[in-house]
């Protein structure tokens, strides 16, 4: 299981990649592996406000349905439309093509409360 060093991780198994005031979010390869084959992703609406650790979408696999929990607060500026037709991208490329949404951050301090790759690897070991 790989956890890229440039990301921050939440206990709810979401990752964040920060680029200035923008952040890309997705679910970790650990989460995708636990879920099994993902068959549907309910994406947030553009313009929606995410609250850290609040739910913002749903991911459905062949064996479970789980809520998506926002790792950070912000406003959704882009969603990964490719997931509508290819939800399996969460399984095949969790940190790349399988990103879920991009948000404009409202509180970058929240990132300090998230785990780094090593801490997340330990938490899921």
């Amino acid at each position, binding site marked *: 299981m790989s956890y890229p060093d440039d990301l921050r991780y939440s206990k709810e198994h979401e990752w964040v990649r920060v680029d200035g005031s923008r952040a890309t979010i997705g679910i970790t390869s650990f989460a995708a592996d636990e879920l099994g084959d993902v068959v*549907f992703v*309910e994406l947030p*609406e553009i313009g929606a406000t995410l609250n850290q650790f609040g739910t913002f979408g749903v991911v*459905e696999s062949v064996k*479970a*349905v789980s*809520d998506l929990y926002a790792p950070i607060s912000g406003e959704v500026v882009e969603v990964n439309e490719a997931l509508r037709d290819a939800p399996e991208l969460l399984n095949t490329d969790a940190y790349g093509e399988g990103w879920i949404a991009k948000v404009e951050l409202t509180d970058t301090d929240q990132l300090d409360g998230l785990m780094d790759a090593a801490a997340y690897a330990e938490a899921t070991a």
Partner: protein
Amino acid sequence: MTYSPHTDADRARMLDAVGVASVEDLFADIPAGVRAGAWAVPPPLVEQEVRAELARLAGRNRIAEVSFLGAGAYRHLIPSVVGEVIGRSEFATSYTPYQPEVSQGTLQSIYEFQSLICELTDMEVATASHYDGATATAEAALMACRLTRRSRVAVSAGVNPDYRRVLETYCAGPSIEVVVVPVDLADGGDGTTDPAAVQALDDVACLIAAQPNYYGQLEPMRELADAAHATGAQFVAVVEPTSLALLEAPGAYGADIVAAEGQPLGIPINFCGPYVGLMAARMVSVRQMPGRLVGATRDAQGRKGYVLTLQAREQHIRREKAASNICTNQALMALAATAYLIAVGPNGLREVAELSMTQARHLAGALESAGLAERRFGGAYLNEVALRVPDSARRHATLAERGIVAGHVLERDEPMLRDTLLLAATELTTDDDIACLVAALEETR
């Protein structure tokens, strides 16, 4: 020994968590007069005594010889094959088809039902059915709230008042506000919902309107759909299924969700059901549909088979986040509707709808030309018509004593509609029935 798994300490902890002092407090909403202890239960009887007592009670039923009662439930001819099909033990005794490998017959019958409802409504996906038209309508409103992420719903006053009460009940828990859009009930008005009033609605998840509406009037469904869509709301059409053989299909005029009472399709009229609720929608909304869906698929050897599908919406997987917490469907009544639709076929259904429409006109015409009644509204109607009949509440009661049910007294629902009867006709309404009503109203003039 006791079979209760809970100790007194367990109970005390649960009561504490809920925040009540005693188990008795949980039943505080139930009036004392209907509690088990309050009943005067007669002593036990042997079988023949029970039969005699039930026969005596049944004898108190007043069987109408002639009835023009509709108002949401309609008396139609039910071909004998319907009872024959639903009486088969494979269907009558089967449980919910969780195991597709032993439930192909039940699953296929539900799939056929869903397909027929899609064809009838011109929609893309239909559920396996709901309790009745009222609960299907309320579920449609909740579904629209999920789809739009809004928490107000608008309902036309032309939707059956019983449905609106059920809607209020469903919306009370999740704190969804229900806004009623008025119908023009003025004397000689058109008895329909004004699309302009819909445009003024703000931030509603859906507009619910009925076709024909409760007063028998034909609503401008296309205009209402457009007005709802202009506000970003879903349009929920509540329809009478046999009327779809003549009227434009909801899918064609822009309905997003269709809800209906399926009783006219081969289910006898009775008090409290079982009836069957129909719901159909567009494929884009399928994951927010409530209840059960059956899909067609292929097995590992490529053979066609049927399964419960998209179960991730359902409560046994999603618990409190399920699309609905009622996944019970009326499989046997849905099967009755399926058998009925197949028995009468598309032409037969059209004949039923046409005869109902023709007899409703004959009925209204006969009463009008005898000077006994006049139409309460302008505009078009189909199988049911609101007529002004002077002193109608008293005459309705008098006629009922003689075995004639002169429709429904609308004043009971809407005080503005004094002296107005809602009279329905179906293909079972004979010319003699109409002559009988005319004569009885003459005598009570």
